[in-house]
């Protein structure tokens, strides 16, 4: 069953909820602009992406004097985009996909490769074809490098990408009693993926980190023998393997669950996940269609769906800035904040492992909470705190007009009130 729609025009709390989930929060004016609108129209509008970016981005990674500086600029440039993009949902989705098709800057230290990868995540943010998206990521120099498929050659398999393609990018591991794939699939998949590598910009030598790498296929390194993969037998190649994995029925469930974790709950409702998976399969892996349905569903707007997602470090920082009306921050502050997100456990483009961040309660521990207190202070109280055009309303800060936090903050001056609001449990949830 696909997901039933939310039947009513949006109230102000509905609008605030929608923007907390899809736009990292919003100002009062942005919330008001959605009140009374039809949920489907609102979702469709938010998902209509073009190639615009935030004006005035002060960071250009290609000016990095060293690979390390380039990486810092790459992170800061993306953080700027997350904070100020006119298409926040596109950036929200790019962040989600970077945590799905994971690459890490421990191995990918080449600017054009990272820029190409980020470009793919944005272009396919609400992709009409998950299979196409998977194929383009799989054949990007960033991924070829990160999971070693550039070293995967005929007779000399390297299984790294073949395994993660199944386990983390498409069908998922399944349950111990009912695995979605076998070790045989991993081995045969690796054979089918042989021969794909890239040329130029190997990334590690200092003088090539700005050189553009290009994906390449070498037929002599390709194993064109018979293979059996996910139940299909033939002389399978790269595209066949991606096709079989990306269109496998379990992939619809696996990807839908990830979208539900992004937009509905840290611990998703499996029946609702199955609903989205059905839409995914029916539309041939049209993620845009799945998202439009999800973001206008009764499940999305249900009262028990509110304030259920713990904002991650990047989301926390970006939400604070967007809720405060997008005050401009100094370049140095932005660079610092990108590093600070790392100290809270989310260094952009560098998850601990290829599985990515688990999110939810995993974001919360003593050190991370302490750092949230520091970020809140830096954005509200300190000497370099931005000046606000207007103090956000309770609705913008907490997503609700009545709640336990409001009463506690009466009588404070605006800066103190913003500070304590930002460290409240309510603000840290979406």
């Amino acid at each position, binding site marked *: 069953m696909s997901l039933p729609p939310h039947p009513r025009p949006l109230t102000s709390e509905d609008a605030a909820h929608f923007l907390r989930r899809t736009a990292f929060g919003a100002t009062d004016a942005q919330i008001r602009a959605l009140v009374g609108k039809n949920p489907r129209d609102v979702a469709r509008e938010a998902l209509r992406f073009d190639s615009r970016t935030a004006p005035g981005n002060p960071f250009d990674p290609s000016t990095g004097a060293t690979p390390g500086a380039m990486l810092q600029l790459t992170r800061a440039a993306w953080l700027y985009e997350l904070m100020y993009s006119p298409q926040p949902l596109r950036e929200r989705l790019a962040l989600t996909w970077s945590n799905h098709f994971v690459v890490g800057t*421990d191995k990918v230290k080449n600017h054009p490769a990272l820029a190409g990868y980020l470009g793919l995540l944005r272009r396919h943010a609400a992709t009409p074809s998950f299979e196409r998206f998977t194929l383009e990521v799989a054949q990007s120099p960033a991924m070829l490098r990160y999971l*070693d498929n550039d*070293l995967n*050659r005929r*007779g*000399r*398999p*390297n*299984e*790294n990408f073949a*395994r993660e393609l199944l*386990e983390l990018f498409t069908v998922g*591991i399944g*349950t*111990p009693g009912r695995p979605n794939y076998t*070790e045989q699939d*991993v081995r045969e998949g690796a054979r089918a993926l042989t021969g794909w590598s890239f040329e130029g910009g190997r990334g590690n030598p200092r003088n090539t980190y700005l050189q553009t790498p290009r994906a390449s296929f070498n037929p002599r390194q390709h194993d064109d023998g018979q293979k059996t993969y996910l139940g299909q037998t033939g002389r399978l190649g790269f595209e066949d393997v991606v096709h079989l994995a990306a269109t496998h029925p379990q992939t619809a469930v696996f990807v839908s669950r990830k979208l539900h974790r992004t937009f509905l709950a*840290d611990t998703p409702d499996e029946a609702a996940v199955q609903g989205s998976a059905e839409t995914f399969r029916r539309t041939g892996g049209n993620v845009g269609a799945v998202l439009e349905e999800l973001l206008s569903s009764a499940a999305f707007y249900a009262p028990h769906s509110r*304030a*259920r*997602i*713990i904002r991650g470090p990047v989301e926390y920082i970006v939400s604070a800035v967007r809720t405060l009306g997008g005050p401009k921050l100094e370049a140095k502050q932005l660079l610092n904040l990108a590093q600070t997100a*790392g*100290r*809270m*456990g989310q260094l952009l483009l560098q998850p*601990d*492992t*290829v*599985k990515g961040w688990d999110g939810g*309660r*995993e*974001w*919360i*521990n*003593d*050190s*991370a*909470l*302490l*750092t949230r*207190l520091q970020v809140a*202070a830096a954005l509200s*109280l300190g000497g370099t705190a931005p000046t606000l055009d207007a103090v956000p309303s309770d609705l913008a800060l907490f997503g609700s007009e009545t709640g*336990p*936090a409001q*009463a*506690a*903050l009466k009588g*404070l001056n605006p800066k*103190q009130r913003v*500070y*304590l609001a930002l*460290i*409240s*449990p*309510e603000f*840290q*949830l979406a």
Partner: protein
Amino acid sequence: MPDRRDFLKLSALAVAATTGMPGFLARAAAQAGGSKTLVVIQLTGGNDGLNTLVPYSNGAYYAARPNIAIPRKDVLTLTPDLGMHPALKPLMGLWDAGQLAWMENVGYPNPNRSHFASMAIWHTADPTQAGAEGWIGRVAEKIGDPFCASNLGGTTPLALRAETFSLPSIERVDTFQVKLPQGLDGALNRLLDAPREGEADYLLRATRQMMKNTARVQENVKKYRAGASYPEGRFAEQLQDAARLIAAGVGQRVLYVSLGGFDTHAGQRAEQDELLGTLAAGLSAFHADLEKQGLADDVIVMGFSEFGRRVAENASAGTDHGKGSVMFALGKGVRGGVHGSSPDLEDLSEGDIKYRQDFRGVYAEALARWLKLDDRAILGGTFQGPGWVA
């Protein structure tokens, strides 16, 4: 400075944080009594056991690894058949003193080659992958005090997940303190006093707990006097923080430190050599520090990785995911030597060694013989260990 002291005034509030946890404080008082500490080292990514504890007299080892085997002349000889990777040289003194133990051939039934499934099995001590709590989380619940087990680092591993509370992660001891701007304690008190539900309640409890934990650490951490010099780098910093916390005596029974990067699919020698060097230098400094602090009798270190690598090298001068591997332990409370038997490299399972020692037996000894806890209750069964705790 209106910082920590103001928070100490909130101690009534901090105590209130525990009221959602039945019997919490009473149990803590009764069971936290032990004075021994276990430091767990996680080598993330699947450390190659064969190139760590090298079977240098075994022709099958050299045949399987023409490019990446450790040449016999480089091996640090321990026994007529086994020796350590040369990068582990800083640990030779501990070996000679009988304070370093290697556990051979450690694994679990139906091994899983996924990093994440396998790590979850080590974290939960549950090869059926049904468990949601970590084995150290269960230790904390048994003792009844979330602070009795802490992670050093940014994110808390699954091993430290508990059902009723969250266990702390301490990024740096020095910054583990709350500095509240002046005049806000009343409002913060009110903010955290109002009851919540669901995830908001979780965040509320975590915030209160954090305030209590930071106060507890900062009160006591000055008891530590620098005793040994540590190498540079995050891993060594975390070990030094572990030493500071142990010296502070704030009640931690288990401390957890991770070193990542062991997923050596390509160019393994360069990568693993560097990592093992980092590991050995850090541990050696940590041990020297504990000696200087007079704490060496009270602390042991136990290290593991989620799996070893395949016996044969791959074409990229690396290794793919394998099954069983080695574990190590060090400290005065350890029975030095090699425990268990080496894997038969000519009788493999899908190219991997066949494990003989269940890792839960190794855990069981740490729990029962070192921490004096009920290992069966924590591990959900009886597991035989190799006798590595003295």
